[in-house]
């Protein structure tokens, strides 16, 4: 089972069920025996009442008055039965309620003994029966040994027990619901810091915060502190890594610049200038390609929500300075507050390369638009970003070539020809796509699907 709350809920519910089950059972048993005891006492009273109503005839036989004082003995449906027998079973008196019915009372009961038992009457009704052994003192020294039997139908008893059980169960059920509700609230409160940690980790993933917050309960502080340390060291490592790449680029490319310049200052020495220049270009292309690929972010630690409008403005300001095209018109149509989800460097690299191409090739117009798309990237939202120009466009047969590693379609335009291919690789790493098409402006239309917030 994956959920802590579900585990706790299940465990506590089972415990409550066992606890309540045992409690209900014990209460039921004690109530049952108390009720039986009450029935027994009542039957005792009935038996003694019968005895006290009995009179001894002159022929030493017992008679009971007609009608007897306890009216229930008269009525066959009353559920109260009685009989008096001699020891051995010879009936002296039977209550009218026993007419057409019989109960197998014991034939002999020791004097002074009370036998209490459940029995089945002949008509199938269950009864509690009490038999009392007595000796009736006759004149002189003779005693008449008798058995006084009384029985009561169990229906009243059963009804009472049922009522008790119903009440008991409804109370306990109510209590259980209350306890479970209380437990759910309690769990919510206890697990709140975990839920907070979870949402903060998600926020870090989406670039909305950089570390886990403070004020966690003591049990979680170790975890959150170490997570923060891990995040910091990973970020520092990523920074160092990018720095190292930059330094590597600097320390290799500066000597390359020296070599290239030397062969142009002394082009005729050995006649090797064109060869060396081509090799320098190759080294540069390989370096650029591999360094840019290595610099493309591959983790989620540098993920931020990057405002598309801001990034676009920064790039346009740069490109306007760099490309000497004062008459160029750039139309932008960016959805309000649209944000790219990822590394800022990656976004600038992708958009920068695509825009740079548009600036190079366009004659007078560039159109940039971006908005949320209906598609998804991974589990997240996506945006469609298009860059169009009114330049010559990219012919169908060259589209694959343009995206191939290290290609450039025109040697005349500066740039190292690795722009779009590295862009495509970076986009693939992010789970996006790049499509080349034709714009209604007449030139190329580059459509990018990128992760968005």
């Amino acid at each position, binding site marked *: 089972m994956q959920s802590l709350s579900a585990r706790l809920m299940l465990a506590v519910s089972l415990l409550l069920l066992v606890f309540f089950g045992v409690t209900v059972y014990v209460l039921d048993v004690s109530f049952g025996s108390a009720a039986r005891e009450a029935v027994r006492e009542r039957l005792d009273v009935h038996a003694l009442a019968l005895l006290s109503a009995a009179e001894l005839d002159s022929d030493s036989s017992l008679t009971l008055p007609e009608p007897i004082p306890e009216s229930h003995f008269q009525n066959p449906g009353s559920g109260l039965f009685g009989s008096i027998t001699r020891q051995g079973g010879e009936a002296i008196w039977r209550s009218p309620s026993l007419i057409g019915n019989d109960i197998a009372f014991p034939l002999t009961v020791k004097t002074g003994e009370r036998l209490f038992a459940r029995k089945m009457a002949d008509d199938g009704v269950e009864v509690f029966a009490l038999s009392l052994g007595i000796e009736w003192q006759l004149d002189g020294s003779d005693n008449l040994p008798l058995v006084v039997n009384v029985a009561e139908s169990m229906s009243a008893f059963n009804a009472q027990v049922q009522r008790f059980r119903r009440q008991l169960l409804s109370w306990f059920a109510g209590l259980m619901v209350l306890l479970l509700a209380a437990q759910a609230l309690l769990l919510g409160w206890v697990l709140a810091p975990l839920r907070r940690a979870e949402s903060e980790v998600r926020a870090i993933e989406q670039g909305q915060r950089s570390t886990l917050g403070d004020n966690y309960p003591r049990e979680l502080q170790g975890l959150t502190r170490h997570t923060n340390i891990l995040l910091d060291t990973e970020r520092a490592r990523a920074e160092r890594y990018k720095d190292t790449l930059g330094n590597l680029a600097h320390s290799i490319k500066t000597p390359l610049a*020296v070599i290239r310049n030397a062969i142009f200052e002394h082009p005729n020495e050995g006649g090797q200038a064109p060869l060396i220049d081509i090799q320098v270009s190759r080294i540069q292309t390989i370096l650029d390609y591999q360094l840019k690929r290595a610099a493309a972010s591959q983790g989620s630690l540098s993920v931020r929500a990057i405002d598309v409008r801001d990034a676009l403005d920064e790039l346009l300001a740069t490109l306007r300075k760099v490309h000497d095209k004062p008459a160029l018109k750039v139309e932008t149509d960016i959805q309000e507050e649209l944000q790219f989800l990822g590394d800022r460097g990656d976004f600038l690299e992708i958009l*920068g390369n695509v825009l740079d191409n548009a600036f190079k090739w366009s004659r007078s117009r560039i159109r940039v638009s971006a908005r949320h798309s209906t598609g998804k990237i991974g589990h997240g939202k996506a945006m469609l970003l298009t860059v169009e120009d009114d330049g010559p466009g990219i012919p169908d047969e060259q589209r694959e070539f343009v995206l191939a590693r290290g290609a450039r379609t025109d040697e005349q335009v500066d740039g190292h020809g690795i722009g779009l291919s590295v862009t495509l690789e970076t986009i693939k790493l992010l789970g996006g796509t790049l499509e080349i098409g034709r714009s209604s402006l007449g030139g190329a239309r580059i459509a990018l699907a990128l992760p968005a917030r």
Partner: protein
Amino acid sequence: MRVLIVEDETELREALVRRFRNEGFVVDAAGDGEEGLYLGREFPVDLAVVDLGLPQLSGMDMIRRLREEGRDFPVLILTARDRWQDKVEGLQAGADDYVTKPFHMEEIFARANALLRRSAGWSQATLHCGPIKLDTRSQAVTVDERAVDLTSFEYKLLEYLMLHAGEVISKTELTEALYEQDFDRDSNTIEVFVGRLRRKLDPARNLKPIETLRGRGYRLALERSAA
């Protein structure tokens, strides 16, 4: 034109200095950011070429400080870091253009010239004042479509005056833009060159392209034409 070159790699710096001098530039060179900052503050620089990976003060910080102090000459950065993030940051710090290493020297010149032209308010590569045309790429000068043969120094003088057409340029400014720091500054030399330039551009003496404003300097008096 006075160019400041800041590059820590000696070989490359010296090559840049040689090439810019050959093109008629006055060159100040520095091997680190602090020295570059000093030269940029002290001299009337028209253009700076700055490597970003400098010891002591980084190229980026040097440019930022110069801009904060109000120095607005165009800056061309040389960088080995060619991620767009680096380029954007470089240009946000105050640079105007970049060239990535390893570069061809021609690219540096093309971009340097374009920056100089643009910073003087010219949008085209050909400067056009009245009948005089000066092509900054081919360094060809014509008057009424007639080619004029100029020495390197005369060309630089004319280019400077045309770039700042309509403005009064003092002799001191011209001297500093056209001569090295340690050059023997004899103001008569400028007068001699202006005289030669006048004769070559206007042999019939009816155009009168360069005015002398007594005690203040010179001015190219022809209207800038939209090319």
